[in-house]
């Protein structure tokens, strides 16, 4: 008796196998589709969130640019911090710091002449 003619509880083995394969195919396609759909929905949702966040970031960047506009900073810093453009008397190079830390009298005094060699 060939395998195709073999019967299990009255059903042909080939029919049972075919039915099993059919059910397996249906289930696998269903599961794959369902899971992929869920993933896709999740991806779309995350991407929507990213897009919304990006839009929000751009809004905030524009807001920062608006708040940091030079004329506004200038107005606020002079009105509330009593500040203004840096004057030349307020600039110093790192090399000059040592001299600037000396008292005014010491700075005005010329450097002592080196001692004569014996």
């Amino acid at each position, binding site marked *: 008796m060939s395998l195709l*003619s073999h019967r299990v509880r009255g059903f042909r083995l080939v029919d049972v196998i075919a039915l099993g394969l059919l059910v397996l*195919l249906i289930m696998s396609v269903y599961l794959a589709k369902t899971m992929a759909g869920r993933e896709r929905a999740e991806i*779309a949702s995350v991407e*929507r969130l990213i897009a919304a966040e990006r*839009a929000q970031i751009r809004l905030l960047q524009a807001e920062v640019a608006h708040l940091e506009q*030079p004329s506004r900073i200038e107005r606020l810093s002079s009105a509330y911090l009593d500040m203004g453009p840096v004057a030349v008397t307020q600039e110093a190079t790192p090399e000059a710091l040592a001299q600037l830390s000396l008292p005014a009298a010491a700075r005005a005094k010329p450097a002592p002449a080196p001692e004569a060699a014996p």
Partner: protein
Amino acid sequence: MSLMGLVTRRFPFGLRWLGASFWRLEHAFERARAAGRVEDDARIRIFVVMLCFGLGFGVLAIGATQAALFSGAARHAVTGWTPPQARADLVDREGRLLAADLLHFGLYVDPAEVWDLEATRVALARALPEVDAERLERALSGERRTFLVGGMTPVEKAALHRLGLPGISFEPEQQRVYPLNHTASHLIGFADTGGQGLAGAELALNDDIRSLAGGGGEVALSIDLRVQGALEDELRKAAQAYGPKGAVGIVAHVHTGEILGLASYPDFDPNEASAATADQRLNRAASSVFEMGSTFKAFTVAIGLDTGVATMASTFDAREPYQLGYRKISDFHASRKVLSLVEVFQHSSNIGTARLAVGVGPERLSRYFTDLGLTTAAAVELKESASPLTPKVWNQDAVASTSFGHGMNVSPLALTRAMLPLLNGGKMIPLTVRRQAPGYRPEGKQVLSETTSAQMLQIMRANVTGGSGGKADAAGLSVGGKTGTGEKYDPAIRRYNDKRQVSSFAAVFPSDGPLENDRYFVLILLDEPHGSPETFGYSTGGWVAAPATGALISRIAPFLGISRHIGPLEHQPRLASAPTILAEAR
């Protein structure tokens, strides 16, 4: 008639074949039993059915897998859409945002879905006071969904959404926003709601801005926002002090032609460009032309040196007014002595300059003016760049007039461009509003010799240390420059009016060091300023524009990496504590 017979007669061949095949298959079992081969034919039948199912499911599985895994439709729907009017961001040379498309919303009304017409009318009128009642009524009483108002921010949209009005819906739209409002308004320009640039860089670089939209691209302008801020502040202070009808400020790199700052006063808010007056929208740096006055003497002196007509040792007799044809040319402050070339520049002597120009001659002077770009619109991307008004005939009279900046109207940008060869080694280069790569040096025609350029730097410096530009000096920054005061022609009195002047200062810093060093040109121009008690009533360039130029240079030098070259204690008399610094900074 049998069913087979009906199929055979009524239907086309294809259907008939399909019907016959089905019929044969359906009766195969009966035929097989009759032939005694029941089992064999049942197996064939099962195999055929299995094959069909298998093929069908195979196709479905492949299709489903492809649709599930490889379709980008959903992703595209979320992020990939770029509106047709989209424009790329504009940023300054350091990447600070100047203009951007931001998500806004348009509000639509669908009368068919409105439940309570009166309540909706009242709620919308209260929430949207800018929408006139007639327009609202038309939208509510119409027969179809109507656009009511656009440009709503997300916050405005959320507030309206919370009212829960049926029949009200929103659609996303992009809107061009200029977050800096008035800052650099004339340089940035503005675009219309259709995404088309209408003015400034928005118009000049329209194609680039459109093509880079959507991909997160940005277009970098040449301006430095810190320089721009200081420029506008100093220009505003000068405008408040001297009440001109307009003012211009320009800062440019002499070797690259990059415009680091450009201001035109009065200015406007590009977010509400339509609400601004034509006078506010006018870019005086590019669109207005002026008789510049004595700043042109820099060109005349440079041409005199370059042609060999004059040397640094040349002298000019300015003891008496210079009679040229029917014209008598005299000096604003008559020195009544023989002047050296440097003194001609320092005293801004009309007599000396006219004598020099006559020596150069009309043909050479006009050729040099052409080479310096003074007879054409300034070469820059800005479409507003205006053509100059030049003498129709280059005769002795035109030579004398143009030598000290009369009889020829040019835009401040054209003056700026023409000044660059005097300061950069003699190369004529275009101005640009685009940020250029570090080390960029554009190609350009050599219109003056390097020697002439080096001499002009010395002469301009001498004018600040001992001439009319003294008020523009900034400690340790080796500022050089030339004052300019051009009287305006007054049609009412049919002659030049000494009460209406264009006062300017054209500066360079630092004027020392090798020619190839980084160096910057600064122009401050006031159109019809008024003298004040502090200026003893004078409104000339040396009194009203030079101080603003010096103050500006002092402020922007650190931003541009130019350090002061003076002794450590010369400008630092004491170590100021923080409170002292704060107190003195006023």
